[in-house]
């Protein structure tokens, strides 16, 4: 057994007696992996404990907590998943008071797969594996080197392949709105492929990921057309940090940037005329 997996198993076994269940990943006989709630009633299920490929488990937590608000749970989180639950906590989607986070540090290989800048946890008290530094994101860097015209051309080539599966929205743990703007005909037309330009679906979604995206890249992973939309989310996250000093998932206490009121000094950083 993989060393990290072995260590994770031991940590889970330590935590499990004190909680109602632990959210992690489970593999079946043929190697298919999905999120699972491990419980002490069924200890044998831990034989199927798995760690890769990752899944949007913050959403699993949300689903379970909605039905069992008081449950005492453990949860295995990678850096991105931890940031995910922190953001969801700030938007009152999950309650972290009863949750034991078990941090799972990503390997270099995993981090490179995700082009991840922060492949480590920051809040989890229990952790498994050695944290590593973030890795470069050559895709985003390559995109930044393009001219405006080249960028337009690039997205046209990518987005003509979009089949409007809504997978990027569906899989995103941060997409928890009860009413979704992407399903509002005022903004996004229905029933036609390829979706007409301008790409309203993707423009609106990019806007809505502002100060929410935690760079887990689940959206890219489930995209049938391999459209690297996280490029945009990532760049915007950088701008939001610059303009409004906000970074997703970093601190539990820091409120997401107030949409309504400019804070001291923000106006100057927006680049708008005075």
């Amino acid at each position, binding site marked *: 057994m993989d060393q990290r997996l072995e260590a994770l198993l031991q940590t889970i076994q330590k935590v499990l007696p004190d909680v109602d269940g632990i959210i992690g990943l489970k593999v079946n006989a043929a190697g298919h992996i999905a999120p699972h709630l491990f419980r002490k009633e069924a200890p044998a299920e831990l034989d199927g404990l798995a760690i890769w490929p990752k899944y949007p488990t913050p959403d699993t937590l949300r689903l379970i907590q909605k039905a069992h608000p008081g449950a005492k749970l453990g949860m295995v989180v990678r850096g991105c998943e931890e940031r995910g639950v922190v953001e969801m906590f700030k938007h009152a989607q999950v309650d972290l008071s009863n949750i034991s986070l078990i941090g799972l540090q990503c390997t270099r290989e995993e981090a490179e797969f995700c082009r991840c800048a922060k492949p480590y946890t920051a809040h989890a008290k229990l952790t498994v594996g050695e944290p590593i530094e973030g890795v470069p994101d050559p895709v985003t860097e390559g*995109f930044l080197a393009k001219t*405006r*015209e*080249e*960028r*337009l*051309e*690039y*997205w*046209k*080539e990518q987005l*003509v392949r979009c089949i409007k599966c809504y997978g990027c929205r569906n899989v995103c743990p941060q997409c928890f709105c009860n009413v979704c*703007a992407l399903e509002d005909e*005022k*903004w996004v037309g229905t029933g036609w492929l*390829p979706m*007409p*330009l*301008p*790409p*309203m679906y*993707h*423009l*609106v979604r*990019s*806007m809505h990921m*502002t100060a929410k995206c935690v760079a887990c890249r689940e959206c890219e992973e489930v995209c049938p057309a391999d459209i690297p939309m996280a*490029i*945009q989310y990532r*760049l*915007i996250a950088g*701008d*939001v940090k610059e*303009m*409004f000093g906000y970074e997703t998932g970093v601190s539990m206490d820091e409120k997401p*940037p*107030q*949409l*309504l*009121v*400019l804070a001291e000094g*923000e*106006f100057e950083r*927006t*680049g*708008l*005329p*005075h």
Partner: protein
Amino acid sequence: MPEPKIIGFLCNWCSYRGADTAGMARLKYPPNVKIVRVPCSGRVSPELVLRTFREGADGVMVLGCHIGDCHYSTGNHRAAKRMPVLKKVLEYSGIDPERLCVNWVSAAEGERFAKIITDFTETIRALPPLTEEMTWTKG
């Protein structure tokens, strides 16, 4: 080259009156901007701006009161927070962010209004029609 189509969302309390002031002073500015009066620049959502582009606008203006002068005290803060991000979204999508003009005009600033309109119309005139850019390359 066809004349560019520009939609201007003007807040009721400052910018729209600024347009009036410009009109009363018989200031000259290009007639490309079709004005939509809104209660406040904070009313203009990013979705509305995008939809305006979708409907064929080559440029969109969101004009509000100067920061600090908003009729609703901080309504225009909302615009000041959202619109810069929207400009970034446009930029990363390959759509010239210059197509979106966010600015502030008080009721008294007729000349400022005329200048903003004139400059923006020139900016848009220098760009190809957006509908031309918004066609699929394949096919």
